[in-house]
């Protein structure tokens, strides 16, 4: 059997980065949520915010730790499996990633210890500032890594000398055409993921009659955020799509399942794209609607995949289906939000078991949506790693044998099953344990420092 190091390296990178992203999908939003709760507690002195914050800090500690260790894998992946990419793009990409470490990672890590363990050791304002710094760190991290990713999608501000990218205009590199849309779209997505995680957990508590006061506050706060961001995401997503149409037309064509370039293209709800035959099977579509939302005209012309040589097209089916999964998850969030408002208007929000159960079952929706979104945009960029300039096949490390990559991939899979399995198990247990400790247990007296790392997670709530 011929093992292809390029294909295996792609699978390996997709595997480690997808698992990694599940954690920032929660911790970026959670860091902001904790900062808001700490701020509300600081301003209003109401204990309920402190109890909620202390609980989510426990969850944050575990998720953030997993995010850090799974994130360290990634820069080394770039060097180990994609050394040609590293050599060719470093002048542009590497400073963006290094800025992420300098601005974001140190900020998060430096203030994390005080956030987790220092509530009794520093003044309350200093603890609040620490929460704020961690939250700002997560957002700066998103800024820099999405700038780097967006540059790979829509490269700008560079010239090519001796086959290597050399920056000519840093502002153009950072604020490349797709970056503002991707940043807004991604941050909105992870905030929504956090909002529906908080709502779902609170709904579970309500359904079991536990921590009722806190759960209601959590649901209301989550719902306020969702009510703004679910509709906003539709607008942002649409603008992002139009940006893709302009700069990466074959990705957009794959997302929409469009083969022919023509006027008045349909909106395809479902189909089985057949790449060999260059057509869709079992297509269900609404005529002309695609042209309307892509060109603002019923008869607008949209490029199809056949306009591009087969070697320049992305794999159609994964992009097509991942895009629809993402939209479906957004629809789930929209339905829950509308349902919640309807129930709130009828004053039955906290008493409708069916809604509370649905909210808990919908916790995965945000995570599925962000992963599906990343599959859409990353597979849609293929066969390029730097769109239009560097093919993925030319980016891999020349010294790698297929068997090397297969070995490392199998090891990663085995380790991640253990690590993420255990992680989910402990996160669920922390949720089940809930907000209030059984008295006398894990109590950290004010004059003591927590002796155990998870004292922040299992410890008292002041």
């Amino acid at each position, binding site marked *: 059997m011929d093992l292809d190091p390029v294909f295996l390296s792609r699978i390996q990178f997709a595997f480690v980065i997808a698992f990694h992203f599940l954690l920032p999908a929660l911790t970026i939003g959670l860091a902001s949520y904790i900062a808001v709760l700490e701020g509300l507690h600081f301003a209003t002195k109401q204990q309920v915010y402190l109890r909620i914050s202390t609980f989510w800090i426990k969850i944050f500690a575990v998720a953030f730790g997993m995010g850090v260790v799974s994130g360290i894998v990634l820069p080394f992946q770039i060097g180990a499996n994609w050394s040609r990419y590293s050599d060719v793009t470093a002048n542009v990409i590497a400073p963006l990633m290094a800025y992420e470490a300098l601005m974001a990672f140190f900020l998060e890590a430096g203030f994390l210890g005080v956030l987790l363990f220092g509530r009794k050791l520093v003044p309350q304002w200093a603890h609040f500032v620490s929460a704020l710094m961690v939250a700002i760190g997560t957002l700066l991290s998103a800024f820099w890594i999405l700038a780097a990713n967006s540059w790979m999608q829509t490269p700008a501000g560079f010239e090519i000398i001796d086959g290597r990218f050399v920056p000519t205009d840093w502002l153009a590199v950072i604020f490349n055409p797709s970056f503002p849309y991707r940043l807004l779209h991604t941050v909105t997505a992870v905030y929504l993921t956090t909002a529906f995680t908080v709502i779902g957990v609170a709904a579970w508590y309500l359904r079991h009659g536990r921590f009722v006061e806190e759960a209601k506050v959590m649901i209301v706060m989550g719902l306020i955020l969702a009510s703004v961001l679910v509709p906003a995401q539709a607008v942002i997503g649409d603008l992002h799509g139009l940006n893709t149409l302009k700069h990466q037309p074959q990705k957009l064509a794959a997302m929409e399942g469009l083969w022919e370039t023509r006027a008045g293209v349909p909106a395809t709800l479902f189909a089985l794209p057949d790449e060999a035959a260059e057509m869709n099977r079992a297509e269900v579509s609404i005529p002309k609607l695609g042209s309307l939302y892509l060109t603002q005209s019923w008869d607008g012309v949209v490029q199809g995949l056949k306009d591009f040589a087969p070697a320049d097209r992305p794999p159609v089916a994964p992009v097509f289906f991942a895009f629809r999964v993402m939209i479906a998850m957004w629809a789930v969030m929209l339905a829950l939000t509308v349902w919640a408002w309807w129930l709130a208007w009828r004053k039955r929000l906290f008493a409708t078991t069916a809604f509370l159960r649905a909210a808990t079952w919908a916790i995965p929706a945000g995570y599925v949506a962000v992963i599906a979104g990343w599959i859409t945009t990353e597979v849609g960029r293929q066969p390029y790693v730097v769109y239009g300039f560097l093919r993925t096949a030319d980016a891999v490390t020349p010294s790698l044998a297929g068997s090397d990559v297969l070995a490392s991939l199998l090891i990663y899979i085995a380790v991640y099953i253990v690590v993420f399995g255990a992680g989910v198990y402990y996160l669920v247990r922390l949720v089940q344990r809930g907000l209030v400790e059984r008295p006398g247990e894990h109590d950290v007296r004010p004059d003591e420092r927590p002796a155990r790392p998870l*004292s922040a997670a299992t410890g008292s709530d002041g």
Partner: protein
Amino acid sequence: MTLDLVPIWTVIVGFAVFMYVLLDGFDLGIGILFPFAPDERARDVMMASVAPIWDGNETWLVLGGLALFAAFPLAFAIIIPALYFPILAMVLGLIFRGIAFEFRASARMGSRRWGRAFFGGSLVATFAQGCVLGKFVLGFEVNGRHYAGSSWDWLHPFVLAVGVGLVFGYLLLGSTWLVMKTEGTLQEWARAKARIGLLGVLAFIAMVSLWTPLLDPRIAARWFAWPHLAFLAPVPIATAAIAWWLWSSLRRGADVAPFVAAIGLFAMCYLGLAISLFPYIVPPTITLWDAAAAPQSQAFLLIGTLFLLPIILMYTGWAYWVFRGKVKLEMGYH
């Protein structure tokens, strides 16, 4: 852009890597010592002594890696693939070490299992980092702008020996950290372990110092030729003096001096390495200047780095200050 930024980037990358070795060195050393601790309460104290800071310590690895990628990309693109499996082992070791922090206490039943993961992860990560260092000294086979060897060339007795040597090195850092942060029986125990660490480190320093010139005639020529001899000669003398200071401070029962001396020992080894290999960043062929990024890329990152690095050092220092002093045994998990 006429200003040559390579020297300053050499200092910055070298500083980040050294900070990582020192800071995560004592975290990893505590992990290596973990199963030998007198009891579970001692283990709780050992973990607690680094719990609030390990994450920040590990961040220096990310900075070191990314600064290398940004400032000397050619070195990054050659060295990392050549060390494919040691790097894999290192990141997986760091994963187990990191999650053991988060999970050990949360799992009342699985506490022992995560203690073992903490030990295993720390040991594997340390050994792998030693292999990285050993292969770095040994050199890399290069063709044009690519690594030309196989993913298994690092398997060499010298490389493996340096791996074991670093295990003793981190054990020394970890145990002297504990001498500083603990008291009573745990501190006594840490002192005993620090002696073992020191003897191990000295043995490996001697072995590597004899083996390296035999392996590599270029380094031999450099060591024993004027004027390098003048730069190099103070290093072994200072190393011996620091080792003596460390040993006697342990006997004296000093709290802080052993840790400071251990740092000094690492600094001397690092300095010796730098003098031996300069100006090569991919020994034996590619110099720092060959591997350097475009001047505008180095300049763009340098502006931010010179501004941010002092700030990072300030708030990192503050975080250490908040958790200063002895970790008390009575605070252990009950």
